[in-house]
């Protein structure tokens, strides 16, 4: 009798102890995770970095066929005043030929103005093609010298290791001659 009693008491005590141990571990783990989070989160962009305001650009001086590079959030943004041939080339592409299919229409607000972030989507180099003497790649747009990605006249990836088209930032034309990026 006494043996059974002590046996069941032992089991009781074990489950009660297990419960205490596991709840302590659980509370401890959650508490530790909460305490660790600020030390990881401090690495994320700080408030002043996030507050880097949008950039307003005067585009009235850019001739047809010219490009300028402006800085937005520390990144270069390409603004290109496209020629009619470039627009035609960009619009006539068969979407099936594109690694990252997107119509030219979806990438511009006004066909003559192509505005996009000039950072190669492979590993972050700045593609060449902004200056008249630069190599423009096999598709007449931009060429990344680091690992050989070719972009077309709509900034879409056509050949090489980059997986995506050059991203289009949020922007709006505040007047005929100015554009607000961001």
């Amino acid at each position, binding site marked *: 009798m006494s043996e059974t009693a002590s046996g069941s008491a032992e089991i009781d005590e074990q489950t009660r102890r297990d419960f205490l141990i596991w709840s302590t571990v659980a509370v401890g783990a959650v508490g530790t995770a909460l305490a660790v989070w600020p030390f990881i989160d401090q690495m994320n962009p700080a408030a002043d*970095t996030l507050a880097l305001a949008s950039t307003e650009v005067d585009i009235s001086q850019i001739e047809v066929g010219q490009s300028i590079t402006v800085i937005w959030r520390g990144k270069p943004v390409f603004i290109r005043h496209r020629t009619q041939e470039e627009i035609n080339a960009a619009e006539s592409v068969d979407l099936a030929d594109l690694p990252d299919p997107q119509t030219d229409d979806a990438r511009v607000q006004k066909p003559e103005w192509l505005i996009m972030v000039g950072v190669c989507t492979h590993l972050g180099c700045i593609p060449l093609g902004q200056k008249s003497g630069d190599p423009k790649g096999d598709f007449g747009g931009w060429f990344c010298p680091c*690992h050989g990605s070719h972009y077309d006249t709509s900034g879409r990836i056509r050949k090489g290791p980059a*997986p995506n088209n050059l991203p289009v930032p949020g922007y709006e034309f505040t007047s005929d001659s100015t554009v607000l990026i961001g």
Partner: protein
Amino acid sequence: MSGGTSNFQSNSRVVNWIEHRLPIFSFLDSQLHQYPTPKNLNYFWNFGSLAGIVLVIMIVSGITLAMSYTPHTDLAFNSVERIMRDVNSGWLIRYIHMNGASMFFIVVYIHIFRGLYYGSYKAPREILWMIGIFILLAMMATAFMGYVLPWGQMSFWGATVITNLFSAIPLVGDYIVQLLWGGFVVDNPTLNRFFSLHYLLPFVIVGLVFLHLWALHMHHSNNPTGVEIKDEKQDTIPFHPYYTIKDMYGLGIMLIFFAFFIFFAPNYFGHPDNYIMADPLVTPPHIVPEWYFLPFYAILRAFTSDYWVYQIISLGGTLMSAKLAGVIAMFASILVLLLLPWLDRSRVRSAKYRPLYRFFFWVFAIDCVILGWVGGLPPEGVLVTIGQWSTFWYFFHIIIIVPVVGILERPKPLPDSIAASVTSAPQAAE
């Protein structure tokens, strides 16, 4: 640590007083003086202690450089130039630190290939080997972040390319990259945290080295025959003075080699582009990492969408992008070494008695050199194909050849003991 014969005795009352409270004298005596070491170690066994000494040189030169360095994007480049021109002996300390990184990798790579040749990673030294791989990873992280600090063009664009690797991770990649940068590009927050971590990691390496030595002293050094110590008296000699003097001699040779670069070719391992201040709007035409990363860089770049290995592992391009595959392969090329003790099925350690393995060892070593060579050149034409086949061979060697050779090979007869291998060799020659 075991294996120490601690018959330490002292007549000094001070020593005995301390010893009674903290047995540090008997500990040092057993681990560095009496410590039994195989009597047949060749000069390839110098490179472990050399690596330890280079680590100390790097820490001392690094701490002193930090006294004059400013981790800010506006000031970093000029503060390094000030170290070079105005700080007393600053040029010397910086050239020691710059070339010391290359020396560290030269010494450690030889140390690793020594382990591969003589089978030092096999039981019971698997954990010793694995800690070594972690030391290599910590060294790579430290070297990468240190190279960013001068804030030259290669610093900036190297940091951009390498941190962008993490954007290949599905879903969370972009958030991770932002977390690493502390912004939307490599910028001042990035430089600050890299400086902080570059200062921290060497001390993490010191901790890992201590574990590495602890594991080493459990079962003692391997040796060129790969036969375990059987009779301490016959097979071993005390570490001091026999190996302390041999290590000192090797250190002298290495320091001559090191000093040649410091004084006569200080920028040999560097890139001229890094003497141009970082410009976030201009990418240098040809970005190359430091030489010690080149084989891994070649593996990263081998993965293009038409690479047949990529086509197989991604199930025809559906499972992952070529960029992600390249990133995974680059990290896997080091992590796969952690499995080596279990991939190698042969019970014989030393390649001296494994003719087939020895052949493939040298093919593998040449393959690594080819990868390094390809990694330093632009990825064009036939170089792409060479890089892809060398990448294939790297993994094929470790994952397929090592296990298969271990099963198929008939090793040559092993000597009965370390002592027998030393004493019988000259007789056989006569």
